């Protein structure tokens, strides 16, 4: 019996075996711990460099003065809010379609983080809008679609925790996450499709005037910092979700009694 299983496994290609092992909750639980630490320390390093560059080295903007420095947290937060949504939706889809338990755990871990990034993007945008546009809030296409994103994250969290049976809760929430994907192109193109107060992209736009290098480098550094932060925090959350989800299994018992 045992040797039979061994034979079947050795017949499977290396990549596929890696995929299976990686997708196993017990393996991922240990893996996540190690990687979360690495990502966490790297994030701290990039945050320090990005904040130094953005708050101290970069010169003030010729129009917005020092208020533009909000960009170093506003733009990465907004990017990460959408990135986190994509990760959440893809992970939820693997749970829904291929019944990958790890997918459900990752999606559940992403939702509160995504909500946090969206909240940060909205708050910093509001605090930037006041001195720049003269108002904290307008019902403009970009701002409204980003607010919808916040409600999509909240909706996912509500659904995932509302239903007693965890599996069906994850499935219902996954459907919502997939339907909500339609909001992403709306956020992205809102500044082009509608006449809006929100300015277009600063970083990827072609031609002049572009950003000063001393302003651009801290922004890219902060972007990397946010991304590293996301992976570190997300992996820690996945560990909690896995313990909760797999509480009846032997490996959790080993972790708990270890």
């Amino acid at each position, binding site marked *: 019996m045992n040797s039979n299983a061994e034979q079947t496994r050795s017949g499977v290609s290396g990549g596929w075996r890696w995929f299976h092992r990686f997708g196993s909750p017990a393996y991922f639980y240990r893996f996540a711990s190690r990687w979360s630490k690495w990502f966490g320390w790297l994030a701290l390093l990039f945050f320090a460099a990005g904040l130094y560059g953005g708050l101290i080295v970069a010169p003030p903007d010729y129009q917005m003065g020092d208020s533009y420095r909000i960009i170093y947290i506003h733009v990465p937060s907004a990017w990460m809010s959408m990135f986190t949504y994509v990760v959440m939706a893809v992970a939820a889809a693997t749970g829904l379609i291929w019944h990958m338990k790890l997918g459900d755990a990752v999606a559940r871990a992403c939702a509160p983080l995504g909500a946090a990034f969206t909240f940060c993007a909205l708050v910093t945008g509001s605090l930037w809008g006041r001195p720049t546009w003269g108002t904290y809030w307008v019902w403009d296409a970009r701002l409204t679609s980003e607010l919808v994103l916040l409600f999509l994250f909240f909706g996912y969290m509500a659904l995932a925790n509302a239903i007693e049976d965890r599996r069906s809760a994850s499935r219902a929430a996954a459907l919502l996450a997939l339907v909500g994907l339609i909001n992403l192109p709306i956020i992205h193109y809102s500044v082009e499709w509608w006449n809006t107060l929100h300015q277009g992209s600063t970083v990827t736009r072609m031609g002049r005037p572009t950003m000063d290098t001393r302003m651009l480098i801290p922004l890219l550094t902060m972007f990397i910092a946010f991304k590293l932060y996301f992976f570190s925090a997300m992996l820690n959350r996945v560990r909690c979700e896995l313990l909760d989800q797999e509480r009846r299994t032997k490996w959790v018992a*080993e972790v708990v009694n270890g």
Partner: protein
Amino acid sequence: MAEFLHMGGYAFYVWWSYGVVGVVLAYHYFSPLVRRKKLIRELASSPLNRNAEQ
């Protein structure tokens, strides 16, 4: 230093932004660490834990 904190007159907007983001990110970083310890304690004392030492 005072000039740095003054942020060219935008101190209120800049520091509130950085403050809110800092607090939110720190909370979301440390809360799962606390939750995992709690979860492990909870599971250790749960009746599901058959493997507990007698």
